[in-house]
């Protein structure tokens, strides 16, 4: 059974790209004694090695990124307001009037906004640019502000985890939906954490990567260092199943199961791994969906290009409102993704030779 309490812990942990320590600590603390080796590499990736039974010589990498999109403090003005820039892709429209937590001590702040009384109708039609926005932490001077939040300090959205109506984790089948911060990619971290509880026929390299949101940086060096035969990448992915007038399919749909990528902007997934996932899902009766091709990018984009090429495939949990302070996922999608990847890993040795090029 899934320990959703741990997903809450991961979701509420703060880890903007380059500053993933808190997330890494939660993962390392709970994996110690479960996995055989636990290594933090030079760039900060947490590599959890679960030795196999020895039946298969494969080296399999499963990756999920620890970092989240957020903000970085870039300046303070005389009145104590903090200026910032986004870290990773953030739509400026989601920022005004949001709560944030600044720095290691999680100092509360609010992204300031001019009240409606003072704005012209024309102003209200325009989107505020990031450099017109500021964080108010209650400081009254530049020195006070910078004393609390020096330049380069990170800020995260302040979003408590919650169960939406009807959600339940009683019994074997979870039900309903949850909302919280950065299920991209704490959902992936949660799935990988679950997968590491088991031993497989081969050595499993569970890699919790850093700096995905700023250019797949951690995955690049992890894959080079580990040199696996193949890789699965676990994600919380774009879900835009809001009502549409035209007959156009959403990128993914909440509740329809694990989202398998055939191709996105960063990788054309290895077809043999795509087929393995689809066959596994079909035969085991696990709901799945094909993510709309060519949207977004994942750590697979960096991993598959390392060394002589590492066949890779992304699998994801659909997540609404990605890269905003709130995201929503379906607990069943989460469970189906864990089951699908777990079952595919079990089947892997039967369909994949070591150093498997196309025959």
């Amino acid at each position, binding site marked *: 059974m899934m320990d959703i309490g741990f997903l809450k812990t991961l979701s509420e942990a703060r880890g903007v790209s380059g500053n993933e320590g808190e997330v890494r600590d939660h993962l390392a603390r709970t994996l110690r004694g479960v996995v055989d080796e636990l290594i933090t590499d030079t760039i900060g990736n947490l590599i959890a090695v679960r030795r196999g039974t020895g039946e298969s010589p494969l080296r399999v990498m499963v990756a999920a990124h620890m970092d989240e999109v957020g903000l970085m403090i870039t300046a303070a003005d005389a009145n104590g307001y903090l200026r910032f820039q986004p870290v990773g892709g953030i739509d400026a429209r989601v920022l005004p009037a949001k709560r944030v937590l600044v720095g290691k001590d999680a100092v509360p702040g609010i992204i300031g906004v001019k009240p409606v009384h003072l704005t012209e109708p024309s102003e209200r039609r325009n989107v505020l640019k990031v450099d017109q926005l500021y964080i108010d932490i209650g400081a009254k001077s530049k020195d006070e502000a910078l004393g609390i939040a020096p330049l380069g300090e990170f800020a995260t959205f302040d979003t408590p985890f919650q169960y939406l109506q009807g959600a339940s984790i009683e019994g074997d089948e979870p039900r309903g939906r949850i909302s919280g911060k950065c299920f991209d990619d704490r959902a992936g971290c949660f799935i990988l954490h679950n997968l590491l509880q088991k031993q497989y026929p081969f050595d499993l390299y569970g890699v919790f990567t850093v700096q995905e949101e700023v250019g797949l940086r951690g995955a690049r060096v992890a894959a080079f260092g580990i040199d696996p035969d193949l890789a699965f990448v676990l994600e919380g992915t774009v879900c835009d199943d809001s009502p549409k007038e035209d007959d156009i399919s959403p990128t993914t749909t909440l509740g329809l199961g694990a989202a398998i990528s055939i191709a996105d902007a960063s990788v054309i997934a290895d077809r043999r791994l795509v087929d393995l996932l689809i066959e596994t899902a079909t035969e085991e009766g696990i709901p799945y969906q094909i993510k709309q*091709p*060519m949207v977004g990018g994942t750590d697979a984009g960096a991993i*598959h290009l390392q060394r*002589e*090429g590492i066949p890779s495939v992304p699998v994801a949990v659909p997540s609404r409102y990605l890269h905003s302070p709130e995201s929503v996922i379906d607990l069943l999608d989460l469970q189906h993704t864990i089951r699908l990847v777990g079952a595919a890993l079990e089947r892997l040795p039967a369909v994949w030779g070591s150093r*498997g*090029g*196309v025959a």
Partner: protein
Amino acid sequence: MKDTLRKLCEAYGPSGNEGQVRDLIRSEIEGLADSVRVDALGNLIAVKGSGGHRVMLAAHMDEIGVIITHIDENGFLRFAPVGGVWTLGLSGRRVAFADGSIGAIGLEKLDDRDRVPAMAKFYIDIGASKKDEVHLKVGDMAVMTRPFVTNGGRWIGKAMDNRAGCAVLIETMRRLKAPKHEVAFVFTTQEEVGLRGATTSAFGLDPEIAVAVDVTGTGDTPKAAPMAVSLGEGAAIKVRDGGMLAHLGVKDLLVQRAEENGIAYQLEVLEGGTTDGRAIQTSRAGVPTGVVSVPTRYIHSPSEMIDERDAEACASLLVVLLENDITL
């Protein structure tokens, strides 16, 4: 070379789906190499010769195409580009899927006929009248389809980018009697989506020198963007493009060999675009890399045009490069 190129151009091989082209090349080079293998990303690597330097020649097998993103209730297919597909001219084209099924590209009613519509306005019609009649799936890829034709020495076809380069490599293998080097002929994958196959095959081969073979644009058509490359004027030896500066030693050696052997050549400066050469050049600790290009009109259209003499000159140049000492 013509018969080989005809087969290559008419084959199906969008990025990531190069299997049919790879099988075709494998049969064309049967017996011409000391060893042939396929790596994890699908690159076909044929090695011939020993001694001298480890030389990598690369030509990409993949072509641009489209990928199904949605199948609507009435059986029409929406799509996204795979590689640099121009929307201009898409309407009315035919596309072919891996299983050979053909679709026609249609276009929604336009509000403004003077503006090039967005890709989202186009759809593929395979003749189905409802969704459950469609045997294809989201994620399936298609390529433009058009027969290979010749007008004297001018050859026209789809996917001349870069089956022309593949044909030049195959022709080089056929003519190469006594290579002085250990030459890896690499038919790469996924060039059109970011030089991906070349990135990994270059790492694996760790060559001492490399030459990518690809098509390049020309400046010899009405009101073309200025470019000092013309069809029929010989092999184009790259100086620079949008992604790389050719290694001067390799470029100069190619020029020297062309002049010594009376092979027609022209120097190429391409403003936009790049080739596998860029990925190979920056592999590991760096690889001295040049590019030999086949001048091509109407690149990324289904009617890419080359001149037979240019392709022949490219092969001749590579043969003399490989049959002589290489000192940079």
